[in-house]
Structures are given as C-alpha cells and as structure tokens.
C-alpha cells in the first residue's frame, strides 16, 4: 500500500508544477511527470508476487505470470504521450515566436 501512496505523491508533484509554475517548459515537464506516475500505477496494480514476465520461452514449463493486459494498455499510452509532448513543444515554440517569452502570465491574450 505504501507503494501506491508514493506513486500518488509523484502525481501530486506534477499537479503542483502545473498549478504554481509560470514557465511553459516547466508546465510541459509537469504533465510528463503526471503521465509517468499514471503509467507506473497501472503496472504496480498488476504485479503478482513471484510471477515472471508474460513471455513464453522454449523448453520452459508455464509458471505464474503477471497480468499482460495493463502492460498492453500502458505500451500504447507511452507512445501517445510522446506524440503529445511533441505537440506541446510545437505550441510552446509558436507562442514564443509571437510573444517572445515563455512566461504564461505575460501571454495576455489567452487569459481573455
């Protein structure tokens, strides 16, 4: 259970970064931290004590294996995160070209 709590604490560090930082780059890094902890939580939840990875190998009898389903879901999630990071970086670069700053309190027209 302590492992789950620590993983959630990592998520909250990401939330802290999004809420209090005024730098676009650090906000992108904070969303990355939140993504890492969400992925890790799914895999923590699927671990079975004493089990091995879910890949059969030649000449070995089937032992206890961990759950392959969350691993499959997280595999797609990691790649999507990479695409999202690329898109956020592109947005930040465009904002920098227009306003010449990464400081979100100075990017006035977005706040309405």
């Amino acid at each position, binding site marked *: 259970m302590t492992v789950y709590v620590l993983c959630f604490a990592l998520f909250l560090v990401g939330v802290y970064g999004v809420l209090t930082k005024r730098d676009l780059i650090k906000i992108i890094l904070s969303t990355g931290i939140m993504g890492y902890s969400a992925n890790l939580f799914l895999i923590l939840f699927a671990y079975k004590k004493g*089990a091995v990875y879910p890949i059969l190998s030649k000449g070995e009898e089937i032992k206890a294996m961990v759950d392959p*389903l969350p691993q499959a879901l997280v595999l797609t999630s990691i790649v999507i995160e990479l695409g999202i990071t690329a898109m956020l970086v592109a947005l930040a670069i465009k904002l920098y070209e227009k306003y010449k700053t990464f400081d979100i309190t100075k990017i006035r027209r977005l706040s309405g």
Partner: protein
Amino acid sequence: MPVETWLLFILSYMIVGSIVALELKNILASIVSIGIVGLGVSISFLFLQAPDLAIVQFLFEIFALIILVRAFAKREYHEEKAARVSGVMYFITVIVLVAVLVVSIPVFRALPPFGDPIMWVANYYLKNGAAETGSANLVTSVILDYRAYDTLGEVTVLFTAILGALTILKVRSKKEEREEDEDE
C-alpha cells in the same frame, strides 16, 4: 531484498528528482533532471516484470530529451519570479495538495494489496493466448489480436497529434505573409 523495498527506494528517489527538476533555475539542468523520473520508471518496469515497457520507456526518455533540448536550450531565457501565484496562495496550494494526499490514503487501503491482484481476464489470456494467437509474447498477442481496436485507436490518436504538431509548426502568421507579398 524483496521487490517492494526496491520500489520504495526508487519511488522516493523519483519524487526527490521531480521536485529538484521543477525548482531548478537553469532550464537545461531542469530538462536533464527530469530524466531521473523517466529512467526510474524504466527501472521500476524491469522490477515489475514488464521488459517491453522498460524498452519503450527508455527510448521515450531519450527522444523527449532530444526534442526538449533542441527546442528550448539555445533560446534566450529570462528567469523571473519562480512562482505564478503570490506567497499566501502558494502555501495554500501546497497545503491543499498535502491534504489531498493524506485524505486519499484510505482509498489505497481499500485496493487489493500489492502483489496480489485480481486476475479474472488475465487468466484466460495466460492460459489460451499462445494457442489461440500463435504468439509467444503474450503482451503482443493482447495488443495486436485480442485488443487490436485499442491499437487502431492509438494509431489514430498518434496520427492526429503529429498532424496537429505539423500544422502548428507550418502555419505562418498573417503579418509574415503580408510582408512576403510586399516583397514580391
């Protein structure tokens, strides 16, 4: 040592690393220190018996580092006040986040304990996966056979994200276009 002890060590290391990465003044050092978290996740995947994910997470880390450094490291960077909000609001934010963590502990107590998951669907996959799909890697058999719709959706989302990034980067502001027209 049991797996849980290793994980506690790696997770506390990752929390310290993420706080350091967010609080550092130098942006290049900040981008590099976020690697502590990513590589820690990769090592945790190895301990949790997920080698597929460890490979992909490691590559993700390298790729994200290259993208961020190429995009941001050489730009002029003005470090200003660290926090977006004033002093009182900053402390209230931190107190609320800590309170959320403390309040959520009973929720985690209600979950199945670590190392003893509910495996109703997984048992079917583990028993019949190799015979029904012919794939020795059961993760691949789930991704590309049992749950291929998930992968199709993933491909679509990735395609859309990349398309969005290309559109954002290639679009030019009206002012630039006007200047070009005047030049012609």
